[in-house]
């Protein structure tokens, strides 16, 4: 074992890789949370454009108490959530997000 220089934390050797399945789940979860729908209702596809990450999302959005904004605004918020989640969680910079609103849902009832 080598002795670490004082103060500087030494990373163990090795590499972290994130499979596309995990990235896809991150995108799905972020979109579902932003659209306020269950993740099963969301379809996310990842692709590549010239080395940059592209995402296309198909999701319903929920309407009802506690939601605001037009559907276009909601879609923009979903795109932003997906992009920032992939960046902050997986370190992937996202080139573009397509959001297709596939339907409207009543807001989920929260059971306490």
């Amino acid at each position, binding site marked *: 074992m080598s002795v670490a220089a004082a103060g500087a934390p030494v990373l163990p050797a090795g590499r972290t890789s994130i499979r596309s399945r995990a990235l896809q789940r991150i995108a799905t979860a972020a979109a579902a949370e932003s659209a306020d729908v269950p993740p099963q209702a969301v379809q996310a596809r990842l*692709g*590549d454009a*010239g080395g*940059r990450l592209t995402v296309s999302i198909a999701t319903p959005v929920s309407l009802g108490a506690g939601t605001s904004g037009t559907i276009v605004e909601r879609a923009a918020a979903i795109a932003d959530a997906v992009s920032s989640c992939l960046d902050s969680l997986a370190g992937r910079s996202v080139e573009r997000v397509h959001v297709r609103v596939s339907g409207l849902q009543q807001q989920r009832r929260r059971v306490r």
Partner: protein
Amino acid sequence: MSLERAEAVQRRVLRRELHSSRAGAAITVAVILILLLAALGALCVLLALRSPLVSGVPDGLQAALAQLAGSAPPAPAVAGGVVAALLGFLLVLIGAAPGRRRRRALPSERAAVVADDAVIANALAAEAASVAGVERGQVRVVVGRRRATARIVPTSGIDVDTDAVREALVRNAPVYGLARPPRVVVADEGRVGS
């Protein structure tokens, strides 16, 4: 063993390792020549004895030429000629070609060190993958005689630091016996997961 002698042995060993042997071709040619000369000798003896086995053979060069003149050469002779020409061409190629193997001598003070190009390609690819932060399978390295080329498929959404990769490979190039700095090419299309 004196130092010069050791160095001479080392040079000789390296040469033998880096170039393919011509012994097979040389032995084949020698065997064929022995058979042909033996056949010629046997023919001479039979002719001198006026054996009935060679009764069809014309007497003397002039008679043989006269027999050949005016008629198309027989098919077996043509086929034999073509085969002989091809064989000769092949032998010239074998003799003139450098016969280098896909391996190279690595600089070393103490011993004659030889590495296969595939081994060097592997080492370069591992280095490139670790510097670029991509999976080993996303790097493909081809080692030519003088220069290596590394092709990297980036992970979508993560930039590959091409300069850092190039610098790392260039630093190692002399160790791997490459005369020119390796090329680094990053593919246009990336791969989604890594």
